[in-house]
């Protein structure tokens, strides 16, 4: 990578330009502050106090939106993280230098507070985010309360009385500059491959893992980033008000922020921003009915959930700023090894039930293998074993030469093994285009920091991802559905979209779980052709679970038959057709005997 010359210059220029909105805003903010806010003749102190409160509320709401809106988790302890950031920075400021003309020390204190909050977020999120969303709600709620208890009992933090006086370092310009940064960071994260990863976690965690997305990792990341900004908001709040008291970080405060996110729309950044402004101003005008405020909030929240469950704006934005895409660099593909999948004597038991027993399978490059068997034979369980949804009780499973023991599903997807699901698991609330783009996620290299900076690599990758996605949609005949929500596609197209999404992960083995289920004869013929063309075009090996014998016999080169978890036959399609055990498994013993007798009778005269 060149360190000097045009490229480096260009990159620096790009980085500067990407923050242009921010740099343009600064002088305006300072002008407003010097000209209007601090002008004693105008008597706008009270107005600007409210405006600054709005700025802080925006930081809180937009950051919580990352967790509650985009990632679909539910944190109700935002005030706790705010308190951590606020108190840490306040303690530093109170013991720091008296004069801080360039606010360097203030920035250091604010960042320290924010990092402390992020650390707290990591400590709280790591154990609870492995589990389902509602545990997080309780844990964050508990965390918020514990933080308050700790503060109230620690003289160092001022106890129940609070800390005061904190040097006034934050004012209008600082608060709003940070608010703009928060919005930019949130927006850029959301529009990047990481944002799509967040969304995929919200939509369907199992499918997201299968597409190679480290769901726990992404939940924790969203949570830590969100805690960081809550910490920033706390630091600003303390340095603006000049004091901090534990009473301002109660559950009610967290609940207000949740209300902002939910009202604005789960996932909508502009929605959160507007709701933050409205819900901050509203109480000022509701002074007369101040007691009613929380009652109104709670009724509004219930009504909204009943009538418009995604919030007022949903995931949409009021407008789309600065949309742009630029040049690509294709991430490389891994090399094929000899056996793509190598399962040796795999057995899995669920309690007393042996779902799959002593299963062995070898899949070579570009092979088309079918897995058939009566209902409950253990076919889907084999897929779940291959993709790491369940670990085998015994035996070894190697995918592309790597033992998958201890690997999470997303790691196995990274190795090059993608799947579809028997009961379609698309990200239903996302468009066809985004579904496939999420499949490309693990092929991209940009870091979250790069996504926020909007570096060159991220632009190239975004374009590459978009092109790859368009191409896959075209191959699957879904171009006309590009911008439709997955849930609105007809059944057959949903199946094809799932295949496109799986192909987007760049697999070398594609596992198709009953792709023909629920399709008619004509569609089945088309599907047969499609499966073959996928194999030829992408050079992937395909393992197919299917009930339709015509399709299985027509398309596969090798067939494995499972019955009650045991492999009862393996061979060429034609061998399987005449295998007595298979016929028995499918049709029962009586019919099998008759069939055998028929063959014997037909064969005997010769």
């Amino acid at each position: 990578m060149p360190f000097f010359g045009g490229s480096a210059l260009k990159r620096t220029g790009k980085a500067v330009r990407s923050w242009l909105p921010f740099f343009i805003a600064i002088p305006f903010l300072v002008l407003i502050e010097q000209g209007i806010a601090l002008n004693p003749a105008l008597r706008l102190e009270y107005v600007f106090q409210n405006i600054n409160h709005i700025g802080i509320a925006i930081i809180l709401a937009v950051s919580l939106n990352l967790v509650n809106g985009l990632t679909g988790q539910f944190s109700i302890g935002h005030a706790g993280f705010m308190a951590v950031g606020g108190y840490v920075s306040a303690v530093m400021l109170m013991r720091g230098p008296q004069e801080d003309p360039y606010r360097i020390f203030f920035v250091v204190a604010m960042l320290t507070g924010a990092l402390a909050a992020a650390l707290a977020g990591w400590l709280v999120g790591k154990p609870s985010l492995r589990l389902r969303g509602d545990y997080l709600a309780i844990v964050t709620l508990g965390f918020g309360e514990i933080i308050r208890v700790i503060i109230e009992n620690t003289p160092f933090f001022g106890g129940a009385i609070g800390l005061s006086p904190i040097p006034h370092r934050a004012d209008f310009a600082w608060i709003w500059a940070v608010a703009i940064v928060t919005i930019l960071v949130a927006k850029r994260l959301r529009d990047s491959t990481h944002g799509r990863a967040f969304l995929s976690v919200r939509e369907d965690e199992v499918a997201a893992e299968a597409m190679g997305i480290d769901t726990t990792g992404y939940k924790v990341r969203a949570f830590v980033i969100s805690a960081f900004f809550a910490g920033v908001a706390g630091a600003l709040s303390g340095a603006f008000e000049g004091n901090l008291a534990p009473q301002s970080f109660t559950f009610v405060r967290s609940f207000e922020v949740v209300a902002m996110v939910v009202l604005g729309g789960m996932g909508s950044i502009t929605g959160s921003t507007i709701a933050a402004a409205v819900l901050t101003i509203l109480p000022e005008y509701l002074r007369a009915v101040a007691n009613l405020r929380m009652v109104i909030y709670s009724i509004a929240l219930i009504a909204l959930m009943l009538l418009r469950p995604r919030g007022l704006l949903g995931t949409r934005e009021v407008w789309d700023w600065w949309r742009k895409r630029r040049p690509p660099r294709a991430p490389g593909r891994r090399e094929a090894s000899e056996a793509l999948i190598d399962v040796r004597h795999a057995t899995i038991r669920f309690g007393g039930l042996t779902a799959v027993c002593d299963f062995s399978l070898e899949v070579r490059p570009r092979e088309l293998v079918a897995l058939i068997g009566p209902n409950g034979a253990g076919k889907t369980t084999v897929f779940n074993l291959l993709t790491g949804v369940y670990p085998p009780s015994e035996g070894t499973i190697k995918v592309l030469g790597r033992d998958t023991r201890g690997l999470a599903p997303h790691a196995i997807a990274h190795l090059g093994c993608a799947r579809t699901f028997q009961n379609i698991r698309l990200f239903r609330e996302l468009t066809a285009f985004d579904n496939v783009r999420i499949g490309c996620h693990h092929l991209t290299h940009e870091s979250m920091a790069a996504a926020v900076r909007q570096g060159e690599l991220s632009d190239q990758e975004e374009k590459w991802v978009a092109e790859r996605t368009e191409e896959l949609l075209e191959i699957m005949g879904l171009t006309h559905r590009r911008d439709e929500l997955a849930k609105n596609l007809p059944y057959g197209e949903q199946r094809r979209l799932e295949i496109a999404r799986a192909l987007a992960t760049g697999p070398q083995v594609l596992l198709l779980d009953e792709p023909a289920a629920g399709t008619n004869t004509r569609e089945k013929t088309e599907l047969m052709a499609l499966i073959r063309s996928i194999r030829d075009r992408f050079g992937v090996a395909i393992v197919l679970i299917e009930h339709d014998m015509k399709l299985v016999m027509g398309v596969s080169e090798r067939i494995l038959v499972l019955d009650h978890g045991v492999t009862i036959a393996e061979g060429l399609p034609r061998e399987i057709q005449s295998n007595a055990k298979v016929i028995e498994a499918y049709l029962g013993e009586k019919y099998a005997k008759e069939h055998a007798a028929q063959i014997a009778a037909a064969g005997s005269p010769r």
Partner: protein
Amino acid sequence: MIDFLQRLVDGVSLGAIYALIALGYTMVYGVLQLINFAHGDVFMLGAMMGWYASSVWTSESRNPSIAGALAVTLFSMLACAAVGLLIERLAYRPLRGSPRLNTLITAIGVSFFLEYGGQLLFGPNPRAFGVLPHRASSVVAGISIGYVDLVTILTSVVLMIVLQRIVFHTRIGTAMRAVSWNPSVAALMGVNIDLVISFTFGLGSLLAAVAGILYASKYPSVHPLMGLMPGLKAFVAAVLGGIGNVPGAMLGGLLLGLAEQLVSGYTSSSWRDAVAFGILILILLVKPSGLLGRGAAEKV
């Protein structure tokens, strides 16, 4: 040693109250996979209704007779059951089948509505509560057992035995367990799911009402936000025992009560509130399905 035994008794008494509340959480979670955030506030309403009833029915709101206390408790149980049914019907039933996040937000909304609506009606200040007479403690072998503690422990034991009978030995209890295993299959077998869910809410609210009366008698005051902390802790107790598991909730409640009393006894009582959440994080790290819970893997 006496000191330790004393804390043990206090812990069991507090734990019994947690267990009564936790049962409501765990039963609702069992049938609906919903954390009924408002359950802590139903508990608060139980105490509140008790306060109203006792101040209306007895000229002196403190220390009514045993029969009076029973009548007051019965009234508050019925009122709470009605509130529980109403909450389920109006707020949760329309959202059945929608994403879990939505029901969770609604539950929090309901909880806040009850708390701040209660504050509007009742005013934010605590009121003295005396449904159970505060008689002198009986001293057994150096350990003093308060009258309220004694009543609490006895009542809880009786209620838990009754509940155990209902859940495991009656028609509706069998239906409840069927719904918790698989609602759609239970429906196909002819179980009226709406009825079972309503029954579950009603039953949980009855227990919460009793817990409310007992708790308010132990710390003789009532106020609209009193449900928040005991509610959260009871939820922790339910998770500790394995959420969805009825004996688990009883065990979890007892353990939590003991842990709290021991910690606050040997350190400072201001750290009491931190104990529960410390336990919660620990259990989530070590055994998320709880002590008696069954691990649930999502079917793919």
